[in-house]
């Protein structure tokens, strides 16, 4: 255990924990978008900027989700320099994703007046934080989606913006997206992940006829778990344990 200071308050932390983890535990608010405890932090969205450094030395602006704490680190989460940076990050994110409600909520919670100087021609709700890409790789293991193109044209989707063939339709990306820009629709016949343009026909239970999972997902799970072929012909409620 080491002692660090956040906004002048001394708190206990384990060495190697990130500032964001310590602050969340202590109830100190640091806004974040691309961070999730289940996947590796990349500091892509820059929303969690704070000022950190050893006592008596010059402090730097760092991302709280990637900065490991050590003894004697002092952190400021809402001084003027941090606020100026947060404002700029929000402004840039808002010009990329003007419809994203969560950005307005963060601005409201931080009490910031965000100017709107830039406009993007191809703006949508995606802020390119890459959380869906990391989740699809690290948690799901399907690695179906990726970043396409470069610079201002960057877009998240299947390889070459085609419908991703490896997508099992688990909807983990839909659940985890911070701006809710990945939508899913479902009927008895098919599940569609709208943003990836992926349509998966549904498997129906042989006994009760209820659609319970996409065909392709059942196929992949059978490969992963080596259960017998009949296992996924029944829905979980009709399966005999």
């Amino acid at each position, binding site marked *: 255990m080491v002692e660090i200071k956040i906004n002048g308050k001394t708190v206990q932390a384990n060495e190697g924990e990130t500032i964001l983890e310590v602050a969340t535990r202590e*109830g100190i608010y640091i806004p974040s978008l691309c961070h999730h405890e*289940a996947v590796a932090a990349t500091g892509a969205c820059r929303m969690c900027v704070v000022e950190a450094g050893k006592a008596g030395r010059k402090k730097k602006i760092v991302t709280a989700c990637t900065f490991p704490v050590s003894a004697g680190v002092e952190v400021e989460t809402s001084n003027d320099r941090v606020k100026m940076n947060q404002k700029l990050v929000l402004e840039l994110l808002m010009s990329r994703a003007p419809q994203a409600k969560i950005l307005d909520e963060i601005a409201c919670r931080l009490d910031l007046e965000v100017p709107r100087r830039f406009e993007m021609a191809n703006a949508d709700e995606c802020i390119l934080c890459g959380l869906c890409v990391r989740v699809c790789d690290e948690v799901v293991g399907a690695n179906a989606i990726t970043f396409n193109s470069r610079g201002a044209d960057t877009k998240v989707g299947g390889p070459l913006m085609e419908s991703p063939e490896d997508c099992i339709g*688990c909807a983990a990306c*839909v*659940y*985890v997206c911070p701006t809710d820009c990945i939508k899913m629709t*479902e009927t008895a016949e098919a599940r569609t992940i709208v943003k990836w343009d992926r349509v998966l026909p549904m498997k129906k239970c042989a006994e*009760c006829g209820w659609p319970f999972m996409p065909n392709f997902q059942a196929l992949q799970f059978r490969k992963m778990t080596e259960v017998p072929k009949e296992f996924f012909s029944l829905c979980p409620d009709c399966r005999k344990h």
Partner: protein
Amino acid sequence: MEHFNVFASKLVPGRELFSPGHKACQGCAPALAMRYLLKAAGPNTIIANATGCMEIISSAYPDIAWGVPWIHVAFENAAAVASGIEAGIKVLQRKGKLAPGKINVIAIGGDGGTFDIGLQALSGMLERGHEVLYLCYDNEAYMNTGIQRSSATPMFSSTTTSPAGKKIPGQATGKKDLAGIAAAHNVGYVATACTSYPFDFMAKVKTAFETPGSKLIHIFAPCPTGWRSAPNEIIKLGRLAVQTGIFPLYEYKGGQYHMSMELPFLKPIKSYMKSQGRYRHLSEEQIAMVQENVTARYEWLQKLAAASQEG
């Protein structure tokens, strides 16, 4: 919302604010409801809990399962105490004695504490428009005192105070429509949920906190002890209750009804009733009668949702 498969569950916050080691029965679904509630609400929460199963099992002296500020109140006044907490927070923040920021206030009651005993306090809270989420976990009888019937007990269900015998086939009246009563107060947000659909429930809790005004969530929570069913079947029973149309999931927001999931067809209610001891005495005619009521009510709700979508 229905089908977040397998991997989405690994992305739910891992921190447990309703800690394990409490004294609930095996296979208790209301305890699951508490877990999901706190995962969605987060640590910045104050809870007023009416007497009931969840109070008994979580707070036997000297232990407590709650990781957030929590107060046990009498059977009838969870809503009133939560109103007071909300008003108190407002005043303290205005006077500068409490840091500004949003604090979630939740009142929790069982079906007895909500449908029967706490109804007038709940009505008062909804009418005054306090910023409180009232969560009613509905296991369809007074379970912790020994399975007495409440006004949430469904028709023909056998309980210790409505036993099935030669003359009477269990509970004689149907279930009160709590979500309907709350919606009639014209509050901000009303929803029904089920413990077998955790993502749907957690999304509803989040929507509730984003909506101004009072809100109520009625969550269906199977009780294996009181329903005389196997503890490993509760998730299946919850799913069947939704899929048969016995407990339709819907939301009421801004005067509009919205069905939470489109069911491809309604499963026959016999599949739901056959594994429960409380329905063991039912004859085919009685099942057919319940089926008719359930289908009619589901179709009525669908019409209501379609009508409010049209305008």
